[in-house]
């Protein structure tokens, strides 16, 4: 696994809702190595505040070397990022982490909540390209409301995926949690890939375990380096040992994670 420090150039920065942005960067070196589920560490400032890079999943890539991020502004780093404009440079390190694993003859359910949707588009594109004709994958996406969800869902639809939606306010799709759509789907798939808030992933993991289906979950923690050096990015493993998200993850077999009750 090779990671690269690349000075990418912004091709476009789109505002999707008041706090959700899509950033497209030309980063051909990183793109050439990237696998779905991996992430990049992004420098958001030219000075020391904020100090650390910020981790973001690779949302999508293009064959001509573009990489896109989908992110929500929640603090200093993401707010700064949202002010960046076309033509500016962004210092990236990536691709980092392990990524999702998949076989070419299984039906997979991709389920994402909130910004957890980000890594699933790249995964969907990849699965599409690799899977046998016979595969019928499923996409389930949840978010606060339709304004947040629809522009992103459109991308999955354009890849030809069956895509079901859920919103907290019922403004599109199912009114409620996206995990509530999962029971109907589980019997039709051989595996689940999930990303989103921890309680949501815990619920998805629980359903998969009950159905005896493999589930891969992409985890989030605070990271300083993303390189396996600082040992800051721990989560509790089900075996009682700590796991480092940047090195052992970010994608884990859901059974290896100690989920909060």
């Amino acid at each position, binding site marked *: 696994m*090779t990671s690269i420090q690349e000075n990418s150039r912004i091709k476009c920065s789109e505002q999707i809702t008041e706090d959700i942005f899509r950033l497209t960067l030309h980063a051909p070196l990183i793109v050439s190595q990237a696998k779905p589920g991996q992430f990049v560490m992004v420098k958001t400032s030219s000075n020391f505040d*904020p100090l*650390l*890079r910020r981790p973001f999943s690779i949302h999508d890539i293009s064959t001509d070397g573009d990489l896109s991020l989908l992110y929500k502004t929640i603090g200093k780093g993401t707010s700064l990022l949202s002010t960046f404009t076309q033509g500016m440079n962004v210092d990236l390190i990536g691709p980092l982490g392990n990524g999702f694993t998949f076989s070419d003859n299984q039906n997979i359910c991709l389920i994402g909540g909130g910004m957890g949707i980000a890594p699933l588009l790249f995964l969907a594109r990849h699965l599409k390209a690799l899977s046998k004709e016979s595969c019928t994958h499923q996409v389930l996406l949840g978010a606060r409301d339709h304004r947040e969800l629809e522009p992103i869902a459109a991308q999955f639809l354009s890849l030809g995926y069956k895509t079901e939606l859920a919103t907290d306010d019922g403004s599109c799709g199912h009114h409620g949690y996206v995990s509530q759509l999962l029971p109907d789907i589980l019997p039709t798939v051989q595996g689940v890939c999930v990303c989103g808030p921890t309680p949501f992933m815990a619920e998805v993991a629980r359903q998969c375990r009950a159905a005896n289906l493999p589930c891969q979950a992409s985890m989030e923690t*605070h990271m*300083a380096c993303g390189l396996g*050096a600082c040992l800051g990015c721990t989560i509790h493993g089900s075996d009682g040992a700590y796991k480092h998200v940047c090195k052992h993850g970010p994608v884990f077999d859901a059974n290896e994670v100690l989920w909060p009750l």
Partner: protein
Amino acid sequence: MAPIKNTSTVDLSVNIGGITLTNPVMTASGTFGYGREFSQFVNLDAIGGIVVKGISIEPRAGNPPQRIVETPCGMLNAIGLENVGLERFLAEKLPFLRSIKCRVFVNILGDTVEEYAYLAEKLSEHSGIDGIEVNISCPNVKKGGVAFGTIPEMAQTVTEAVKKASTLPVIVKLSPNVTDIVSMAKAVEAGGADGISLINTLIGMAIDIDKRRPRLANIIGGLSGPAIKPIALRMVWQVASAVSIPVIGIGGIGTTEDALEFLIAGATAVQIGTANFYDPSAVNTIISGIATFLEQHNETSLTNLIGSLHTGDLS
């Protein structure tokens, strides 16, 4: 990977405890893994020295998450000295370190004087290790560590024990969380240390106001990064002015200018810590930068720069 300037005619080499470093730029313990993690960003052979993550006799799991918080121009960590332990270090990490050309220092930690001595003795038996850095200063572990790093007599005792048990040069790393850093430095010098590195992290804290809980599971953690640089520089200057063994400056160093400040203040070498996280090729940049600075100032040797601070008539 940034190119390393080694066409330079300037002599960057420095000597610490009888061993020569090709240049004064080292990496700080706990911030550079075991070297390998950075092989894609840095020319490891060109580094002055690598100090590996602190090793204890037995493996340690470290603290529960959350272990890291960003603070203004700094970060708090409460890793809790997670490490693979002596045995796995020797078996799994040392072979790679032996394969690179730069000097390797092993940072050690223990709960008792005997543990420090045992580690020093065992490490001396293996090739590929150029020196020992004794961490008496980590603020994250409740027993032992804190007292060794804050009471001069105890620091001296540990130093003596490690020196006695080891055939390698011994550097003692000081904690900044003390009233009088000079008396700590003098104690470890009296204990026979071949060098002193400072500073380790300052003890800090951060609170999540919505949850009304500390952000770190360990409640408190160690503050590092540019925020602490002025404090580190002051302590390095005070210590370098008071002892006659080499001093290694650490604390918030991320640029060539930062490194030069410490060298001018009297440090024989510097260690790059937190900067490796946000700028993984920082070590390379700084090595080249020091060479360029010296050339521009018509210095043929780094040693002319070390401790060259003028303090007379400053207004």
